[in-house]
């Protein structure tokens, strides 16, 4: 970033990275929740804190996926302008699909 750069002309890559990473994190949460519900071995693996059960591992792992993907995307895109319309749509789609996948009657279809 140059000394004269303002927030107005800042490349959109940083925002796109934050958006897509949030979508990926949300999707990871939904997938892990389904996996822990369907497979006994995943359920066992996800118990990071016994009183909370598999929810502790599902959420902690999803947060890790979110933050790691954010760091990687930020490093790659922060100085660039990217196809924000496509990335924003994909991120929102991931979030909405995740919302639906966490709904038990839908999650039970898998």
């Amino acid at each position: 970033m140059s000394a004269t750069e303002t927030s107005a002309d800042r490349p959109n890559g940083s925002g796109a990275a934050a958006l897509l990473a949030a979508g990926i994190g949300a999707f990871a949460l939904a997938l892990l929740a389904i996996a822990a519900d369907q497979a006994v071995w995943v359920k066992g693996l996800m118990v990071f804190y016994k009183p909370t059960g598999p929810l502790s591992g599902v959420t902690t792992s999803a947060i890790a996926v979110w933050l790691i993907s954010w760091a990687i995307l930020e490093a790659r895109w922060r100085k660039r302008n990217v196809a924000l319309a496509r990335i924003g749509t994909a991120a929102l789609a991931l979030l909405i699909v995740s919302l639906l996948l966490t709904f038990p009657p839908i999650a039970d279809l898998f």
Partner: protein
Amino acid sequence: MEITTRALWAMIHGMGFGALYLLACSGAIVEIWRRYSPATTSLASAKDETFLRAYLVLMVVLAWLAVLTGAYIVYPWYRAAAPAGTVNLAGYPQMQLKSNPGTSGWHSIGMEWKEHVAWLAPISITMACAVFFRYGRGIRNHPQLRNAVLGFVLVSFLCAGIAGFFGAMLNKNAPVQGGSVIHLMHGGNR
């Protein structure tokens, strides 16, 4: 007037952090929609920008406190297993709900959805806050970014609403109770 420590934590989690987050969501949606639209005639000032940043930080704190207190303080009490032969399941909300076909859905759908969907709210609002810290008023020049962030805040509002609704209904059907009793005040003989 008394309250148990478990009921107090459930109240702090839901009526404190959760409800405050829901209230704050509506304000954030209006502010982002109205003041940061490329078409707005009332431009956000530096003071407005600072206000929204502080507001979003508060929302991030509320969202994380809501899910963390829920998952690590209240939920273990909710899912505690009763010793074999326990007849009175009042201290074991999950088992109490599952013991009756009329209430089992509050667990199998309500809690199962709530415990996961609620986490989409802090992820979304943390992202929105980070984007505003990075772009500030300049987000007006990135309408696609602003629209996508607004979409995430709207979905986070929906997720928090779902979690809040089921939290209230679960607590109505099988409240988290127990722990030491806190005496709030003495009632009169009216």
